[in-house]
């Protein structure tokens, strides 16, 4: 009998079978040794979320020499024929692992609604439901149900939650990568904390013996998961100070760079989905200076992430997604002192890297001003179905809401991008 894929209800039976009689710390050791036996074969995903909507024309779909083409020059990458912005020189060196999707075309042009849509694949408020985000879906589909680590970690922002899938698949939020998980350390020293846990365990057992409450069993499971995380060696993945200075340097000194480094450490430790947010792409004003500065934060971090994963043999099993909620207008606005670009969902770019895709390609094409997709348009549903397929998730599967409404992981009408599959 394997103890790894236990549901919460199974834990209840287990507790009833007498496992609860073992002291908390002893019990935890049982859990830890059993979970260690399972090989981690599933894929992972790192979502680099470019909050605010990056200007496609100033990053990965340059239109030099056209009207409002912008200030940046294209540079060549290691893949002949593919050019990107001059402010991504390091990423240009790993382009052979990446596919740029230049035909993104979606329908939501306001930040919150567009973010919701691209995270969940459903329009906010549609059918009166609260939909799970990609991270929660990945957690539910391919996450380890009872490992010490959470399956969905969001770094730098709260992101979107588990919706009707429930709190079990909600993200663990790391506000500042340098500080790690909030409240991960006890307020008293280790042995003192164990004394507290021992007394708590006695109380829990006594209460459960009398009341036989499922909620009490679930409460204990969650506490055990949290304590396992606190005491696990995997939780050291959250501690960036353990990383040698040389490898930290490659990611750049930005908070986003630290976030990407943390993402790598978490994937190594078995976390299924990590989202790292880089905000500030809402460049209505002073577009070029700001996009340049953001690109310079993004470039070393992305390249180092790809290189590190490759070096560790994890790039094929880790899909990196770079995207925001939309692109920006092909035309420059002159409202402010320095030109800016406004929201533009009709045509934009995203990037997929690693995860077993066929790299070194560009899929889709916009017209000469970057205003309309003229080749291989990709909808939000196509995109999410592609990500799921690459992660080995059956995106046509239906999840049931608590009242039994069947909701597909990705709604009808999606066609995955076949060109990516190698």
């Amino acid at each position: 009998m394997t103890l790894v894929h236990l549901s919460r209800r199974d834990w209840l039976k287990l507790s009833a079978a007498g496992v609860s009689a073992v002291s908390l710390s002893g019990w935890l050791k049982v859990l830890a040794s059993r979970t260690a036996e399972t090989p981690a074969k599933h894929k992972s995903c790192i979502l680099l979320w470019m909050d605010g909507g990056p200007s496609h024309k100033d990053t990965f779909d340059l239109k030099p020499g056209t009207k409002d083409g912008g200030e940046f020059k294209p540079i060549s990458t290691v893949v002949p024929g593919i050019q990107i912005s001059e402010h991504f020189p390091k990423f240009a060196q790993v382009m052979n692992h990446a596919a740029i999707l230049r035909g993104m075309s979606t329908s939501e042009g306001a930040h919150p609604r567009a973010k919701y849509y691209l995270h969940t694949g459903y329009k906010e408020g549609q059918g009166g439901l609260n939909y799970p985000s990609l991270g929660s879906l990945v957690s539910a589909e391919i996450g380890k149900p009872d490992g010490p680590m959470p399956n969905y970690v969001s770094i730098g922002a709260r992101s979107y939650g588990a919706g009707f899938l429930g709190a079990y698949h909600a993200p663990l939020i790391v506000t500042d990568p340098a500080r790690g998980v909030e409240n991960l350390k006890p307020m008293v020293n280790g042995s003192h904390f164990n004394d507290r846990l021992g007394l708590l365990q006695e109380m829990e057992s006594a209460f459960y013996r009398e009341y036989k409450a499922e909620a009490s069993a679930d409460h204990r499971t969650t506490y055990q998961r949290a304590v396992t995380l606190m005491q696990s060696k995997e939780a050291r993945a959250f501690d960036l100070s353990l990383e040698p200075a040389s490898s930290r340097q490659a990611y750049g000194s930005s908070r986003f760079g630290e976030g990407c480094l943390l993402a790598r450490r978490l994937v190594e430790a078995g976390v299924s989905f990590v989202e790292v947010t880089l905000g500030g792409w809402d460049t209505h004003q002073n577009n070029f200076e700001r996009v340049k500065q953001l690109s310079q934060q993004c470039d070393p971090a992305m390249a180092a992430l790809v290189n590190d994963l490759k070096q560790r043999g994890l790039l094929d099993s880790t899909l990196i997604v770079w995207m925001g909620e939309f692109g920006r207008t092909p035309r420059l606005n002159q409202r402010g002192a320095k030109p800016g670009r406004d929201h533009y969902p009709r045509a934009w770019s995203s990037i997929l890297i690693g995860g077993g895709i066929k790299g070194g390609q560009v899929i889709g094409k916009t017209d000469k001003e970057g205003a309309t997709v003229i080749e291989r348009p990709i909808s939000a549903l196509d995109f999410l179905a592609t990500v799921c397929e690459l992660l080995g998730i059956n995106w046509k599967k239906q999840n049931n809401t608590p009242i039994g409404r069947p909701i597909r992981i990705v709604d009808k009408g999606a066609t995955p991008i076949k060109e990516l599959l190698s």
Partner: protein
Amino acid sequence: MIRRTILALPLAWLILGNATPVIGTPLDAPPLARHIDEALDTCLRAEKVTPSPRCDDAEFVRRVYLDITGHIPSAEKAAAFIDDRTPNKRAKLIDELLASREYGKHQADIWQSLLLQRTSDNRFISFDRMTEWLEKGFNANKPWDQMVRDILTAEGDLEKNGAVTYFLANLTPDKLTDNATRVFLGVQLQCAQCHNHPFTKWKQDEYWGMAAFFTKVRLNGNPRQAAREGGTLSISENGRGRPIRLPVSAKRVPPKFLQGEQPKLTSSDAYRPVLARWMTSPQNPYFSRAMVNRLWAQFFGRGLVNPIDDMHEGNPPSHPQLLAELSAQFAASGFDIKQLIRALCNSDAYQRTSKPSAGNPDAAPELFSRMAIKVLTPEQLYDSLVQVLGVPNPENFRRRPGVAAAARFRNLTPRMLFVAFFKGEENAEPTEYQAGIPQVLRLMNSPQLNNTAMLVPLLKSGKTPEQIVEHLYLATLSRRPTDQELQRTLALVRKQANEPRQAYGDILWVLLNSSEFTLNH
């Protein structure tokens, strides 16, 4: 053949089991409570299940405080109640709590989250006015039909009428239809927005027939501007105005009551008052039952129809006759909410222990043979923690990263942030434990939850160690420790004799992190 006959009957009959409510003279709370017990006992006998015995006073005082006021009692109140020798002290406490201000506050918490869901579309709208409005209404025991009519027809300035928040927060006809039918009528119509409902008779036309009643509502003012620079927001329904544009997928049909007639309306009529009158009529087969079922679930942990707001022919009530009678009684009492709660809380069924006994170890929960064990809602948990630890220092709270800016924006309080952090899945059963690792880490390891300032006066009070431990148990679990617990905790105190604050801090930590604290048993 039989099947066909059933399908030909009115839908209301199918859902509700029996006839439409008969309005008679309403019963007082005590006979109504007896009525509840007779109905439940009949089923228990038929199923050969012996219910659990009456709960002890400690279990009762904690339960009834949480259910009516939304927080646990103080150590002093719990002890006073347990030691009180008055024979009808439970009935007296129920009355006392229903008359307290916190009753309305707790109901307002429940209804605010049912009526207003935070989405990006309403992120500039403060919900505070609605909470105040609800609290006032519940505390005044405004009849439920009147309260719902006031919500559905709310007009005017937000600052003068908190109920207009309902429209500010649900500004499109489809959102209003989803919410009003689910919350006030207990039916899930939203599937029929896009297609005919798969397992009920609700057709897409019926959805949009209901939605049509909300097509003349207008927002006056700009929420974003009002939030940043001040300014008024108001709601109006202009009878003469052209109906607003519906989503592309909408069916264009005239206003029509759910499973009912198409009222005669002229283009200059206001639509909402017509809908509100139909919805809240004592003859409406859904209205009274939806509220009875919701209140039942609030106190018993599951509805007579469960899930509570999904009443359709495929989801019949566990006790059809009882639901029909309670609904008729509720309507006959003039939709008197406190009266119904008084009856529920005075029933034997409500006062059973939640412990299983020899006669019902595996009894189905819908038999109500023992009290369901409910998980404290985030609001109940916060208010109970405050009850024990005192109000958190706002300075600590403001220093947390990312909080200050957000807090300024919508005037967020520590309570709102705590609730948002602990909020589980929207439709979860009240008996389901929802917290995940981040929530538990905060409970175990945050400075706020490890704050032992409440121990300082206790340690100076001259109380013996036994009395201090007893106080901690009463303050958190509303009961005295068992002998075994007392011996165990006193040993811990002796072990750290030089550090009494630390020792009692350990005990407090364990009590606050126990499932007994986080459950309403």
